[in-house]
């Protein structure tokens, strides 16, 4: 019998669905050059390749945090069944167990060894004093924190640097080795090519970004065992842990929302553009109406309604985690409902254009059914728009979650997210002395995520934008006509 019971939350299912979609796409792409070519272009862009390791790291954390289970205790005598604890944990929780369990009583600053505020402490002799008490875990191994802390941190950093050097060298050798094999070069040949800037994929910048990332994380982890590297929050939870847990929420919002909205946007957009007439009128009416209601109103109304429902039916959720997860799923859906109109409009326009394309007419001349035409001719030719929109939307959604949670209509307060962290920081910032670290940590991680997502999205857009491709295709008339032409020659 397993010592644990796997748990599949709603959002886990969405994540699995997403992974399945990506795998299906990769399988398709292996057979179709036109699907692979733009990604190859992404791999050639410096911005995209700098962002890629960062995004990959975030994705890995998010994925580990999506494998949920309940711990079991072996059956006691007389009992046949395993008993499972009430906590729904994730693999990430296990990997950073120490962060989760090393709780303090309340606020403490990054790397602090003493609490952030004075407490009344009863001495063994019965007298009471008010002082900053030692933390239970942060720096508790130090006998004399005032004098030893700096040296201890320095030592640990040095060790981390050693480890990250080893890891970095390993990673670089692997990357360069793979590249060399793919291009049929020797290892030295690949190195020489890199030195001369003679490589088609910007390996150098990518490695720099990966090395920085490895070093940062090794250091954070090396120190987080004995210190709270980002401090602790009001109830004494490690902020670094909260930040790590927030990553999954951000990723789920950023991707699952799109997953929810894609079927609507794609089907309705293509139907409207392809069939025109009444169908088009109806769909246009629908999205014009929807998009003229302010999103925030719609979301607030829906979330509040659901909140009321959940409050009156507490029995349907057997744990806090499930409850928070349900709310997250709901938020994804409602965000999806309010955000499909943009893509839908885009796809409608593109389909209107494509349906007049002669290859579509040729298929119609063969009596090919409308459904097949939509599937075989229209969908593959608007697919780049879907991909571009998906990646461009990602960072917007991550930020939207932060804003919504801040105004209280976002994720469940029990769910870790950048938004709830920032929301909590609202009160912390007003304290004296100021508690700045939760806000700083949430902000830094969110910025890193959004920035790299945007960098990557730019690379994707450049690679998929058909206008870029038109240059290569160059029909007869356009071949030499690339320059921006002055209105009347010379008037410029």
């Amino acid at each position: 019998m397993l010592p644990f019971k796997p748990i599949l939350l709603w959002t886990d299912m969405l994540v699995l669905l997403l992974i399945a979609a990506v795998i299906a796409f990769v399988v398709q792409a292996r057979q179709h050059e036109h699907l692979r070519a733009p990604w190859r272009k992404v791999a050639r862009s410096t911005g995209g390749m700098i962002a890629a390791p960062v995004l990959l790291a975030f994705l890995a954390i998010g994925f580990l945090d999506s494998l949920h289970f309940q711990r079991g205790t072996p059956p006691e005598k007389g009992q046949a069944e395993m008993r499972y604890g009430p906590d729904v944990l994730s693999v990430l929780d296990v990997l950073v167990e120490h962060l989760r369990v090393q709780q303090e009583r309340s606020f403490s600053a990054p790397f602090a060894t003493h609490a952030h505020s004075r407490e009344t402490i009863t001495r063994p002799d019965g007298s009471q004093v008010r002082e900053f008490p030692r933390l239970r875990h942060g720096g508790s191994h130090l006998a004399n924190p005032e004098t030893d802390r700096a040296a201890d941190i320095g030592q640990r950093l040095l060790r981390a640097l050693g480890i990250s050097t080893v890891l970095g060298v390993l990673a670089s050798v692997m990357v360069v080795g793979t590249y060399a094999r793919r291009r049929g070069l020797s290892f030295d040949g690949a190195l020489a090519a890199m030195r001369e800037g003679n490589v088609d994929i910007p390996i150098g910048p990518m490695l720099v970004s990966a090395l920085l990332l490895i070093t940062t994380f090794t250091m954070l982890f090396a120190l987080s065992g004995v210190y709270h590297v980002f401090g602790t929050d009001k109830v004494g939870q490690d902020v670094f842990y909260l930040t790590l847990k927030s990553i999954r929420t951000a990723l789920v919002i950023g991707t699952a929302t799109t997953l929810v909205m894609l079927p609507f946007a794609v089907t309705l957009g293509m139907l409207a553009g392809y069939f025109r007439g009444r169908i088009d009128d109806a769909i246009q009416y629908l999205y014009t109406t929807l998009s003229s209601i302010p999103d925030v109103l719609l979301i607030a109304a829906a979330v509040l309604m659901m909140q009321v429902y959940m409050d009156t039916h507490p029995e349907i959720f057997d744990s806090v985690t499930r409850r928070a997860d349900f709310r997250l799923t709901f938020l994804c859906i409602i965000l999806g409902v309010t955000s499909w109109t943009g893509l839908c409009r885009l796809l409608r326009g593109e389909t209107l254009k494509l349906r007049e394309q002669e290859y579509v007419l040729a298929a119609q001349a063969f009596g090919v059914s409308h459904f097949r035409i939509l599937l075989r001719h229209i969908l593959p030719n608007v697919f780049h728009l879907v991909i571009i929109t998906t990646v461009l939307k990602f960072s917007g959604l991550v930020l939207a979650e932060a804003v919504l949670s801040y105004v209280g209509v976002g994720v469940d307060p029990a769910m870790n997210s950048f938004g709830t962290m920032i929301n909590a920081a609202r009160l912390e910032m007003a304290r004296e002395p100021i508690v700045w670290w939760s806000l700083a940590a949430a902000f830094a991680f969110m910025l890193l995520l959004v920035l790299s997502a945007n960098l990557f999205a730019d690379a994707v857009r450049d690679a998929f934008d058909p206008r870029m491709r038109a240059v290569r295709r160059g029909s007869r008339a356009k071949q030499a006509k690339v320059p921006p032409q002055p209105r009347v020659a010379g008037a410029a």
Partner: protein
Amino acid sequence: MSTPILSLSGVRTTVRGADADLHPVDGVSFDIAAGETFALLGESGSGKSLTALSILRLLPDGVDVTTGSIHLDGTDLLALPEQAMRDVRGRRIAMIFQEPGTSLDPVMTVGDQIREVLDRHLGLRGAAADARALELLDAVGIPDPRRRLDEFPFQLSGGMKQRVMIAGALAGEPALLVADEPTTALDVTIQAQVLELLRDLQKRLGMAMLLITHDLGIVAGLAHRVGVMYAGQIVELAPADRFFAAPDHPYSRKLFESLPTRPTSAGRLSVIRGSVPPLGQVWQGCRFADRCDDVRPGCRDADIPMKALEPGHAIRCILGSRALPPAVASAPLDAVVKVASPLLDVHDLRVHFPIRKGLIRRTVGHVRAVDGVSLSIPAGRTLALVGESGCGKTTVGKGIVRLLPLATGRIMMNGVDLATLDGRALRDRRRDFQIIFQDPFASLDPRMRVSEILEEGMTALRPDLDASQRTAAVDALLTSVGLATEAKGRYPHEFSGGQRQRLAIARALAVEPKLIVCDEPTSALDVSVQAQILNLLRDLQERLGLAYLFISHNISVVRYLAHDVAVMYLGRIVERGPTEVVLRHPAHPYTEALLSAVPALHGIDARAPIRLEGDLPSPAAPPAGCHFHPRCPRATDACRREYPSAVSLGPAHTVHCLHPTR
């Protein structure tokens, strides 16, 4: 020759590529004297437009002139700073572009665009500028110029836009006018107007002109000297008379021979093997060697230099002058009118597009794009449909293959009226008729492999075939259109324009149709490739007994391929008859004007030009009576009252005109 205004020597333009540098212009030298028209002739990709842009220094990013020199009146243009170059552009050299629609600023009035140049280059402002702008518009033949000054480009037709472009170019009183395919985007009748305007202006103002074109006919009418470009080099440089009498370079000769006006004795066009070479090709010896019929040992040994044959005439070939006109022989199609029952019989076909306006998009009227067309095609024969752009040719074609909803009409094929069929019944009939489109770049789905493209129709219309039979059929199809069977696994973008058109033909053939509607299948192709496709179409017709409805505006193509011709004007057929009869003895004034507008090569088919005034009226509101009367030189009051009924002029030759030529 007097001292040249413009002189290019060894100009090489380089595109910095990812892998290697490319040279689309590779050592071009020529001079243009004051008052002279020099034509740069070449197929697409030969580097002629880039040569022009190099002169104006308007090259795109990453493209530069790397060697050679360009002198304008003794000034080295390549050494000028950009600031000074801006004074040269528009003032000393002006340029007009191919696409009038995109070269005018849509948010500026016509007057402002011209005044801007006057202000910039001549410092003319206020009333003086107004007066000059009026003069210019008048000079380029724009009727009612005062009103046009305040109009925006979208209010003008294509021909008028091109005239405004020319007026703007002339505003700076340039010494040299560069015209890049000035009429390619225009209709033959409008093209004739613009060419005449250019010829006239050039004579009056004595400016030099660099004319860039792929059309031999235009060169013949306009140029004093000719340079033929091939793969970035000039291969022949000759006075126009000499060139048209007897071109000497094998490539020039082939260009003439592949014109459809000159079929060889076998009734096939002489073709240039292969297609225009790609830019990145590495050369060894003569660049034309792979396609040259006269290739001999020595051709590939070393670069071939230009060799002067006589003053002002040089070729880049190891052979000398032939002093022979190119092969001319004609074998018209068998003109016997077969009295076969028609395969396709269209009666009173009408296609109307609703015009919608307002909030609820109420239909407020109709564009009568096709307004009562009747025609018939016997099996195994070709009917050509000719006419100006917008007259409804494509709409007829799409209507017949039922890609557009019909207003009324009967389309009889094999005793069944296609117009009444729907759904399943129509689908089953679709095997019999197929369509080939004009633009080979838009007619193949870029996301599908060749095999998938060719199998699509078979899957839909020949369900009796299994997978292996389909594969075999694909191989057979590719072979029959002259492509290798390896092409199956590739994507359309890997093929050239001509090869794509072959694929489109193969796709149509896949369901073994009896009739193919060909909508301008060669108008997007180079002359040499056009000849290959025309030959292919004719072969297939002989082998498979196909009937074609061949839509075209190119009269020489029609003459080569069609048994019968129908001339369309504003949604109706105005004249119809056997090709030889209609082209030789046109009876309708519109047909006459259309034929005379075709730029003729020296000596062949020269007609007294009949210039049509104005443009095609809107099909939403056709003129009352005979649609053609506002432009017709023979119009009388009777013509304005009612639409003329059909007059028969001979076997199968009918015309809708009250005063036909007899």
